[in-house]
């Protein structure tokens, strides 16, 4: 493998100013981006951290009072917080696992060229292109027990009309299905590209050695596409944690609290109840949780952090 680093020999020669330029000049292109990111993120981060230490109603900001860690204490002893954690973890786990698996299967299916594969691929990306707001409404329409097409098709084969989004036991699985429908094309594309990057000779060599297809897959191909898998996984993981648009358009955290994810609770508390302090504490706890999980996921994928 070729290296991607710049050899050291170029640095260190010339006048002091030139040396400085050469040593740190590569940082220059980063300045606009980093400045922008820091500028936009610093204020909201500090603001929300600060808010989490207050008892603060948005409509009555003048009357807010400093309460220290009270919000965090209340949260950690609030059963609905833990319930949201569980709902979110279940959702994220299933969604990421299913999207990666089905995406891989699809990628394997499309791996070798066949007639019309480009055409089909162009269609397959459609679900991820549709706005989440539209996705939510579309599925709500299709799953309506009275005039939804899903219900109708079920009745044609003798099944009763089921209210998928209104049944506490079915609502979360239904949302998972919707998310998988929408985002599998995303993982599919990434994995397909990654598979196509695996050199033929690796596969041929394994086959000549007499290995069966499945073993080739697991022992040789999958490890080679670890990076794309990791990127797809992390991106989907982070987005799954923040899912909101779909819930807003379908179940709104219900029925009862079956789909009350962390991000939904934060919205509910922050914008319906105007409990900004409590919502801020909620989001910081959520941040800690997400960072922890992503770190663990990445560590599992990469025994050593090598990104070069």
């Amino acid at each position: 493998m070729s290296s991607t680093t710049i050899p050291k020999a170029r640095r260190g020669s010339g006048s002091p100013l030139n040396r400085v330029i050469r040593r740190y000049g590569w940082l220059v292109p980063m300045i606009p981006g980093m400045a922008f990111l820091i500028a936009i993120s610093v204020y909201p981060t500090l603001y929300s951290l600060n808010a989490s230490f207050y008892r603060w109603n948005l409509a009555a900001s003048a009357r807010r009072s400093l309460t220290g860690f009270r919000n965090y204490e209340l949260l950690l002893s609030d059963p609905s917080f833990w319930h949201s954690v569980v709902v979110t973890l279940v959702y994220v786990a299933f969604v990421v696992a299913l999207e990666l698996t089905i995406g891989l299967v699809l990628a394997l299916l499309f791996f070798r060229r066949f007639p019309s594969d480009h055409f089909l691929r162009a269609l397959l990306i459609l679900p991820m292109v549709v706005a989440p707001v539209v996705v939510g409404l579309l599925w709500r329409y299709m799953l309506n027990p009275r005039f939804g097409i899903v219900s109708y098709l079920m009745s044609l084969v003798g099944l009763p009309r089921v209210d998928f989004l209104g049944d506490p036991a079915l609502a979360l699985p239904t949302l998972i299905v919707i998310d998988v429908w929408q985002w599998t094309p995303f993982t599919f594309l990434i994995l397909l590209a990654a598979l196509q990057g695996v050199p033929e000779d690796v596969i041929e060599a394994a086959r000549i050695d007499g290995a069966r297809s499945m073993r080739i897959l697991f022992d040789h191909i999958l490890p080679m596409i670890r990076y794309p898998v990791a990127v797809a996984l992390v991106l989907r993981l982070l987005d799954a944690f923040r899912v909101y648009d779909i819930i807003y358009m379908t179940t709104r955290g219900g029925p009862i609290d079956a789909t009350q994810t962390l991000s939904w609770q934060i919205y509910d508390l922050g914008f319906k109840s105007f409990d900004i302090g409590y919502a801020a504490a909620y989001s910081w706890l959520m941040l800690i949780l997400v960072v922890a999980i992503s770190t663990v996921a990445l560590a599992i994928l990469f025994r050593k952090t090598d990104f070069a």
Partner: protein
Amino acid sequence: MVHSGSQTTRRAAIVGAALLFSASAIAGALAAEPVTLHAIFLPATWGTVVKDTLAPQYERETGVKIDVQLIGRDAIHEKMATLFAAEDSSFDIFNLDYNWIPEFAGGGHLVQMDDVLSTEDKADFFPLALRVASYGGKLYGVPQTVHPHLLWYRSDIYNDPATKEAYKAASGHDLAPPKTMDEWLEQSKFLNGRTYGGQKVAAWAAQAAKGYGNVHTWYSFFSTYGGKAFNDDFTKSTIDTPDGVAATKVWAEMSKLMPVGAVSYTYDDVTTAAQQGVVATAMQWSWGAFAVDDPKTSRTVGKWEFAQVPSVKAGEPSHPHLAEWVISVSKYSKQAAEAKKFVAWLETKKNDVVQASLGGGDPVRLSSYSDPKLTEEKLAGTDVKRFRRYSEVIIAMKNASPRPLFEGEERWETTITTPLQAVQLGQSTPEEGVKAADKAEDAALQR
């Protein structure tokens, strides 16, 4: 000194030109900045009436332009909070659900509107309507539409001889619009599942979705049974009382008799169910009745009649849940005076009737209810009165129960909707449910 003719003419010309110039400059300055008010209304009929008809008319009459944006209920609430937190003046006028008055007026974000209505006006409005639009004894919003809960029932079903006979045989009572909750429950159990016009009907429908829908429906039951949600200074939730349990029990029983999928029913789902003939009765806002009389979307035109929400005991009044939308002016508006003028104009006697006749919400002035323009109007091609519900609305307004009027009201609805839905779906018993509601709300009050 003698001025020659040409000198005089020249001077006159110069003065004339100067006058003309300054006049046009002034006119230009005035014309260059026509007053434009920015308003947010709900996309319900009373919002669209303002946007499509009344605002343009006001512009023609006064030259003041009103830019109306229609946004959904939740979005209005969010936007108001965000704008007020930033003391933003991009919007002058807001359409509010009255339960938001305490939180926004209490936060100092609304302009007082006492001087918008004269004493006569104030006497003409429903007293309850004005009361719920006030905070700390001052008026902060001008009522635009009131709509209490009414019991809607299918006259074709209730007058059907076969049904009446069968009911009499099964229960020993006559089939008439129910006066008490027990009657309604009994009738509902009987009617649920029967077929009319080739369509199987459910007993009733009402809002039941998580959020505020189920709370609004439950609240009519709760208030009718005498429940009070809080103690006097709103420091303790008092839903768990014998009255509260009784009300929740009946509501839970009735909830089993709604159509399939009713647990997600929002306002428009109830309307659709009524229009499509899927239900025999309904508990719905009085104003919504127009939808079932629309031949383009309704299969039950003229078949719906209106009565009071059933009470607990015969002869006693019920306490239907009050819904009302008011119009307020933002404290941060730079054109508050103009905004108030527009609001006043919208709710004059004349325009209150105009709004109603154009299909907007139900009127807020008692006098409008006897205006022949409204009371005599009939549905196209029939003998059925378009506003036949008005007599019921007046009665309902006497005893209607407003939502708890305190700053955390919206939060309260968001908090108790979950334990209530658990009762709806049978996951908790009514007793457990009201206890859980109290617990959740007390915790929220602490936050």
